[in-house]
């Protein structure tokens, strides 16, 4: 087949479709993964004995469970107890559960790195603990967690390819289908790789700009990565 025709008529349209699915997976997962991560970090850090243990258990479970296994359980396992999820939904749920577990660890680390005096001063001014966490602790902790969280976001872009294992044709799945149909493995996977690289590079630039915009003199922002 003519390489130009393969590229313009077959590869690019297929990867474009896949890319859209990948972006949907990632962009749906990230905000909920962040929110749940914040919730778990707060529960672990400030919750009572029970809540804190529950959050710790959550982290152990979802950090320990291979993501692929989790997706299999959500997609193939749940129907046996009557819960049928579309493959895309199952993927997003699995990613959120996993993403949140790791995010919460970065956020909790950041919370712990904030000096006690910040909370003390907020409470001395008459803030309740919840107000102090919202206004003083989280804005600082989230800034400090940006490097770790952005790492997780980059992992998410890459592990979103696991959705293909439960039939979601995202970027790498789309590549795989083209490659096997036309026996053009190297060309296709090289192209897929370039798209992932572009996504990750864009993310890195974006995070850099975000960090600069949120930077505050004297607050530690950079973590060597």
């Amino acid at each position: 087949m003519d390489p130009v025709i393969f590229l313009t008529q077959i590869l690019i349209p297929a990867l474009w479709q896949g890319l859209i699915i990948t972006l949907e997976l990632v962009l749906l997962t990230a905000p909920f993964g962040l929110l749940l991560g914040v919730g778990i970090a707060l529960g672990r850090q400030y919750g009572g004995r029970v809540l804190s243990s529950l959050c710790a258990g959550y982290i152990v479970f979802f950090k320990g469970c291979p993501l692929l296994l989790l997706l299999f359980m959500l997609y193939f396992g749940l129907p046996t107890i009557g819960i049928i999820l579309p493959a895309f939904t199952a993927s997003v749920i699995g990613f959120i559960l996993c993403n949140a577990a790791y995010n919460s660890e970065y956020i909790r680390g950041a919370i712990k790195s904030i000096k006690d005096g910040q909370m003390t001063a907020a409470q001395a001014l008459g803030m309740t603990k919840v107000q102090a966490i919202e206004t003083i602790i989280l804005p600082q902790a989230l800034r400090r967690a940006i490097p770790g969280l952005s790492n997780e976001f980059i992992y998410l872009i890459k592990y979103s390819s696991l959705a293909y294992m439960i039939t979601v044709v995202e970027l790498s799945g789309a590549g795989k289908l083209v490659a096997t149909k036309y026996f053009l493995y190297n060309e296709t996977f090289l192209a897929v790789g370039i798209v992932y690289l572009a996504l990750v590079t864009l993310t890195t630039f974006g995070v850099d700009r975000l960090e600069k915009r949120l930077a505050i003199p004297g607050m530690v922002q950079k973590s060597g990565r």
Partner: protein
Amino acid sequence: MTSEYILRIVDLHKNFGDREVLHGISFNVKKGETIVFIGPSGTGKSTLLRCINQLTEPDKGHVFIDDDEVTGCGYRISEYRQRIGMVFQNFNLFDHLTAVQNVEIAPIRVRKMKPAEARKKAMEELRRVGMQDWADHYPSELSGGQAQRVSIARSLAMDPEVILFDEPTSALDPELTREVLEVMKDLARSGMTMLVVTHEMGFARSVATEVVFMEGGQIVEQGPPAEIMKNPKHPRTREFIGKIAEH
């Protein structure tokens, strides 16, 4: 019945493990008084201040502000803390906020004041401590003395009835100490009720209504500054005053 005292401390006890830090402290404060606490380190002066606004919970005893009991009030403690300002040795300014944001944040979040109104109030308080030109600077861009003045403004913005100063100048060099003490003297003269833990005897001499000498978790002696400094009755007070006078 309203008492003439704005703050009453009754028989406060506090243990940390086996160590008894406060051993039955009682005293009263009238509106507008400046009480200075002196004594060797580790004698419970800072713990006493922290027990007043319940940042540390006392084991026994009572704290009353305007006849309202602060001790054992449960979740309502945050309401009482609005009435009791506190200034810390390490300033504890909020690192992610500028000077003016540090001052306006509690009025906005706690008092639900409108942001524009809170900003105006915050600028007034900054002016009061001579920091209006530094409003848009972050804590890390301020000297220790400037940071402490902002933290005093932050406290003032909540219109507290009493302000607790926990060694406000101990982290500062002499020059910066002076600028903070000037602000505190102005405050004292303007009628603010203040409880101050400090080693600055000059400050005590010029504005304190009463000096309290504490040791071993107890009040050893208290009285007007001139009396305590020139004519201490208790031998331990005499020894302590003698020691800090040498410096």
